[in-house]
């Protein structure tokens, strides 16, 4: 659905307007129906990448295809975009801005506007001027304008940065419901817990380079670092010291190569294995490890 091919981008900076490259030939694909997280610390190039995909900023080199084509007004009609910290017109109401934006598309009526306002929880505040909206409310109206025309592809830039915990949960629920409807979603974030909860795939960007791409579940599954083994009814296993003791239960933490030895030792001592849980790295740990490699 989105193909980013060898994209380079630089900006002029400082008094002498020297060129500074912020994207060093990044490439990735976003498949149809996937929820993809674009991860990276502040200044990694996430927003620049998204602006290039949206045609707001032209790349110096490389190419971006959306729906297999170069971005045009027609392709834009099938994209919903929420920028970082959205800001709209102070003296227009939430409803007015949605009405105005709905004119860009066909067959959008008041019913659709009300539906979207309800979805983002702004129905009561829809007739207030936007200058009286809080940061979270502006984020919601931003989401409403992105969803208004029921686009196939949704691109969100740091969608949860201005939201409180309840707002973030609601936003995650919206993304989940969009995913169930088969929408493709690309969103950038530096809040890794949110990404871990809702993404199918992740693209890690650091200093303008893609450092890792993968399916989130596989990435986490393949990254088993140790096993937690709960043992009952024995004094424990020889040569292994438990992490915790509670009543007749022992909790051991062992590496993959030690697992067989531990189980054998427990059996020999007449103990019972209650559970063996593989523990993998969190997304945050994987991300930090990848960053350190650079």
């Amino acid at each position, binding site marked *: 659905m989105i193909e980013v091919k060898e994209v380079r981008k630089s900006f002029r900076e400082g008094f002498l307007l020297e060129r500074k490259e912020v994207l060093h030939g990044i490439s990735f694909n976003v498949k149809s129906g996937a929820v993809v997280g674009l991860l990276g610390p502040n200044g990694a190039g996430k927003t620049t990448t998204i602006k290039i995909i949206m045609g707001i900023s032209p790349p110096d080199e490389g190419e971006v295809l959306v729906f297999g084509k170069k971005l045009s007004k027609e392709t*834009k009609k099938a994209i919903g975009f929420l*920028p970082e910290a959205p800001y709209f*017109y102070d003296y*227009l109401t939430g409803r007015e801005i949605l009405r105005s934006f709905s004119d860009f598309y066909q067959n959008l009526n008041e019913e659709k506007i009300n539906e979207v306002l309800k979805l983002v929880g702004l129905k009561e505040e829809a007739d207030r001027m936007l200058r009286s909206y809080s940061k979270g409310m502006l984020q919601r109206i931003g989401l409403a304008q992105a969803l208004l025309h029921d686009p196939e592809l949704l691109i969100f830039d740091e969608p949860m940065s201005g939201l409180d915990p309840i707002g973030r949960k609601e936003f995650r629920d919206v993304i989940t419901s969009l995913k169930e409807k088969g929408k493709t979603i690309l969103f950038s974030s530096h809040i890794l817990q949110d990404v871990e909860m809702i993404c199918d795939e992740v693209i890690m960007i650091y200093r303008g380079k893609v450092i890792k791409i993968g399916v989130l579940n596989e990435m986490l599954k393949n990254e088993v670092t140790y096993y937690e083994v709960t043992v009952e009814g024995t004094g424990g296993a020889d040569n292994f010291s438990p992490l915790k003791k509670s009543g007749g239960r022992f909790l051991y933490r062992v590496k993959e190569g030690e697992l067989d030895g531990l189980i054998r030792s427990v059996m020999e001592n007449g103990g019972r294995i209650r559970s063996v849980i593989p523990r993998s790295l969190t997304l945050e740990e994987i991300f930090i490890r990848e960053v350190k490699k650079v």
Partner: protein
Amino acid sequence: MKGIKIIASVTFREGIRDRIYLIFFFFAIILLLFSLFLSMLVIGDPTKVIADFGMGVMSLLGILIVIFVGGPSFSKELQKRTVISVLSKPISREEFLVGKLFGIWSNVFVNLLAMAVLLFLLILAKGVMIWGIFVQAFLLFLEMGILTAVDLMFSSFTTSFLAMLFTLSFYVVVHLTTTIEKASQSLSSPISKAVVRYIAYLLPNFDYFNLKNQVVYGLNVPPLFYCKSFVYFLALIIFFTILAVWVFKKKEI
């Protein structure tokens, strides 16, 4: 075209509800009413004093709206990144900028029309009808269109404050073109005379939109003047809009 219409409509509504716009509007009404009082203090035909002063107020308010309402609304969209949300819609940068131009220009139109009607009625209350006020208001409207394009061009590459300053300087300079041209004749050195004259030719001349004296003194204006003014307006607004679009397209948002 649809994109231009949407942006023009949003800009117009945003502008007309802006507190500064409303303050300017009431300020203009107070100044126009003040012209009644002024006409009592000055020796001469009171209707001429009201018309002269009133048209001055119209010019002042036009430029204030362009500089303090129109330009900043565009700069704010760039600064607060509203433009990013808008440009993600099926609209080009050209359409966005032209939409802004029409939106701001519509704000000026409403203001000028309201002031022209009020001024006309004030003079009518003295028993005189000066239809020329509407002609001058229309010429001012054309002038403000050009100024809006110039302001958008400056706002595309610099800060809101500097854009205000540059636009104001432009306004002052283009109103001095005829004076500069006349001043060149009094220079003794042929080189300086040629340079100053050349500069005067290069600068736009906003005297094409000034009929204040003719309106106040009821002088006849040849129809050719209106044709020239309109062609001149078209040439300038097209030139400055293309320039503004070019600058805006180059801008990294």
